[in-house]
């Protein structure tokens, strides 16, 4: 029933949503903020009003999504498609339809004002709106950009500036870019909207006084899903297929065809079946427990998205629908402590050194050096050999390794960054360099239990209280 092609379409659509390349069908919990941002941008385009605002919220709460959604909607509403000539009957509509420009900057990418300015020029010239020569120096190009912006009138094309990672722009020297943008926005010469997006709640405090006074002090907050039902709805949205995903036309004329067209019929049937399975997936006890756990831990939708990648990628002709059992394993995989996983593969000598470190830490020797660890290890080995159980209780012989061999193992632990030098500038022989352990003693105990070939005597040593 479900063909290869259908499944690959469904897969692409869902994966695009999971990797945040495409937008979900509708917004959950952030409609209010969306309306405000959209309204602000709209006013800039329609009335030529200049505006500035700041969108704040923790990561993964949908700030960028709001912006993308708003831009997409504006595009639909206002953008004049290229090459379209204004026909006579559209004349009265034309006053409403206006073209506009979007300039997107990201504080991570444009790490200083000069680079940001260059990028603005580039994006402007790509849109074909400016014939400015792209002068190289900041001091040259800033006035030319500003004079270009200030020379405009309300009739000019509105420009929407999106400043992602706004807080990083505030760290540029003198904040001259922000100052000038806000200044243009305030002086209402060229209609521009400046939308800052940041995850730092104190972003406003970062602004200089002269910059702050030019900012409109509109700020909107986004929050993670307030309750579990909202969270589930967001998650479900990402997995549910829509008609668009499968290329099912929504036009009324075409709708009539569906009845007759068996191809579309099959598509619609597949979609319904797929969505039914997704809904029942969320009713599955084990699955919702996994979702609940992610929600309890971080309330981050991306946590769920990461979980979904594997199972969605597994969809095939033989397994066209998502099954809860697929999620169990990935759910477990996400839950594991990566450090413990990493430690499961270390050698017995390294494990012994870690146990020695654990013993030291439990004796409140928080910083230690290799000599101390080796001394502890040696004590244990001496004892084990004296007791005679080091010989062959597990069919393996414990042996005391030489200091140099142990030092190599110790350095391997440092390389894996499980140990960290306690002081920055430590001179002298490396055996005496003071270290700190980056593991909890319970983590070490956990590793000892899970380690594949750890003799019982070593395990007993690990659990012994000092």
């Amino acid at each position, binding site marked *: 029933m479900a063909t290869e092609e259908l499944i690959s379409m469904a897969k692409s659509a869902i994966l695009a949503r999971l990797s945040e390349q495409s937008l979900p069908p509708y917004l959950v919990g952030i409609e209010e903020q969306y309306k405000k941002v959209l309204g602000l941008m709209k006013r800039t385009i329609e009335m030529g009003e200049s505006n500035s605002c700041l969108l704040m919220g923790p990561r993964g709460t949908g700030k960028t999504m709001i912006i993308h959604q708003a831009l997409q909607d504006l595009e639909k509403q206002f953008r004049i498609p290229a090459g379209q000539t204004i026909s006579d009957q559209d004349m009265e509509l034309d006053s409403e339809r206006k073209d506009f420009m979007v300039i997107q900057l990201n504080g991570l990418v444009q790490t200083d004002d000069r680079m940001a300015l260059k990028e603005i020029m580039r994006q402007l010239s790509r849109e074909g709106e400016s014939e400015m020569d792209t002068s190289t120096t900041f001091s040259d190009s800033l006035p030319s950009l500003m004079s270009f912006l200030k020379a405009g009138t309300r009739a000019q094309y509105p420009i929407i500036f999106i400043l992602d990672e706004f*807080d990083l722009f505030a760290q540029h020297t003198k904040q001259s870019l922000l100052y000038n943008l806000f200044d243009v926005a305030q002086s209402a010469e060229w209609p521009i909207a400046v939308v800052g997006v940041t995850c730092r709640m104190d972003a406003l405090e970062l602004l200089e006084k002269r910059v702050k006074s030019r900012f409109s002090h509109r700020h909107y907050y986004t929050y993670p899903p307030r309750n579990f039902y909202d969270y589930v709805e967001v998650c479900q949205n990402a997995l549910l297929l829509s008609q668009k995903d499968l290329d099912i036309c929504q036009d009324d004329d075409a709708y009539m065809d569906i009845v007759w067209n068996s191809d579309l019929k099959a598509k619609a049937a597949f979609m319904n079946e797929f969505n039914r399975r997704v809904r029942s997936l969320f009713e599955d006890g084990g699955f919702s427990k996994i979702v609940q756990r992610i929600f309890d831990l971080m309330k981050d939708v991306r946590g769920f998205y990461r979980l979904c*990648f*594997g199972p969605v990628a597994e969809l095939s002709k033989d397994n066209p629908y998502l099954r809860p059992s697929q999620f169990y394993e990935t759910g477990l995989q996400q839950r*594991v402590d990566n450090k413990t996983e990493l430690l499961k*593969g270390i050698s017995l*000598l390294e494990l012994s050194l870690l146990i020695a470190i654990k013993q030291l830490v439990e004796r409140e020797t928080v910083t230690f*050096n290799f000599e101390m660890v080796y001394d502890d290890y040696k004590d244990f080995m001496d004892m084990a050999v004296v007791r005679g159980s080091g010989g062959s209780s597990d069919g393996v012989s414990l042996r005391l390794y*030489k200091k140099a061999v142990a030092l190599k193992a110790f350095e391997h632990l440092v390389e*894996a960054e499980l140990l960290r030098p306690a002081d920055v500038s430590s001179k002298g022989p490396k055996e*005496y360099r003071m270290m700190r352990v980056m593991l909890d003693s319970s983590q070490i105990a956990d590793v000892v239990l899970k380690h594949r070939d750890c003799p019982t005597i070593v395990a007993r040593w690990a659990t012994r209280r000092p």
Partner: protein
Amino acid sequence: MSMSKQEQLHSTFPGRAKQIDQILGFMGKPWTPSPPSLLINGNSSLGKTAVVKAVLSTMLGQKSPSRYAFLDCVECHTPRLIFEHAIYQFRNAPKETCLSKTGPSSSSSSGNIQGSLKVTMGDVRQGGNTGIANDKSRKRKRPSTRINHAWDKCENINEFVEWCRRICDDDVDTESADAEQQDEQRPPRGQHDTRYLVLDRAERLRDTAPTLIPVLMRLQELTGRSICVILITTIVWEKFRSKTGGYEPIILNFPQYSKNIYFVSSVVLSILEQDLPESEDKELYMRFADLVYDVFQRNCKDLNEIRHLIALLFPLYIKPVKEGKIQKHEGLKLHRHIQAYFVEAMDKLYLREISSTEWSERALAIASGSSHHKVDSSGHSETAPHRYVTGAPGSERAMMTAMDVQNTFDLPYYTKFILIASFLASYNPPRLDMRYFAKVSNQGGKMTKRAKVSAAKRHGHDQLGSKLRQQLLGPKTFPIERMLAIFYSILDEDVEENIHVHTQIASLVSLRLLQRITPMDKLDSIKCKCNVSYDTIKALAKSTKFDIDKYLYDFV
């Protein structure tokens, strides 16, 4: 077609089928959206790099402007190098890497053991990275010979993001031309193939630029194109997180290979089997590999190290078999024969105290020396095998220790005492100097055990041999005057010229045996630390017939 590729990959990498399937699942069809970033995490030498490289080159290797770029962050240590190398690789055809080259079986092709050993070492130690580096630098010098695009400049992240967009967009045109030839499913219009940017040893990225990791993690969002960044690292993701956070990658863990004794098909052994030299007995080789793994896995899980050891030790192992002294099936005898070499290998070879070529040359020289001996004294041929089995490692051990002595430098007589005195000054508490070194005291230098204990109690230590004794804490700084006082005390004769003593101190500092704590321009009240280990100082004291243990407080 893709099934056979998958099976091929599975057979090349034993024990990695699950990981390969996961990566393939994430990749999907060339145009399906991929996760923005992946983090591949696992201990060293678990095939992380090899698997990723092989998967990418088998799946995407034929496409002409390369769909993937593979960078090593050690080699590309600045953002600029990363960007430029990535752009270069994306704009050109991928290098001709086939499975057999990247797989772990690479080094076994040559029949000559010595030859294969060299290949193994080159391959193992460098992980094949030098090859890439050389290749690249060659290309960079002569950009016109093999490529269609010159080296492009890219200085910052901003330009890189722009380049990524351009690279992906370039390809939409070429692809539509491509697609006609291929009878596979056509990608949706306007979609371009996913690009993969692989960064090996990504832990080094943290040292380059603070914003680089967050940018790479969300490169897909920033460029608006389908680009997947794969980081390969040995450390956990937590260490990568930046202050303000960012997009989190999907984490893929490579677990340790298992060697399950109850099943015949052990993953470790099947990996080691790929090194089997031609014209060697497989059963014998596998028995040996098993033995080496069992002996060394206690302190070293690194399979590359073990492969290296096997390659070096195997000629020694089979030598008696080749010479007909021991039969192949006499496992126990062979075991006993090689056992002695294992201890040597652990100390010398594993620690790289001498180079492996040096070691193998010497070991073979000794072995052949004993066989020469056998040829010479053919009259005593019945004693020769016995001599060989036990004698050779013994004579070798003698040579090794001779080498160790050679390693310890020789110093002038008085300088040795200066060094000993500074060692004592570094490790003994100053309060006890009176007891140990005062010449008037009748018990000078003869502090009894009881006296030591009482001294320890007086100074707040509970007992001797505690976990915080100076021996473990390392050398303390001492004023040079104190050291000189000890020096004159432990030296029985008089040293008349003080100036020479100071020259000696200066030369010890320049040899780094003493570490000067006070700055060089400060001439008065110099403070130093002794940088020498206890073993060295013990050997030194022995050579001057000085009983250092008598003067050391709280040493075990």
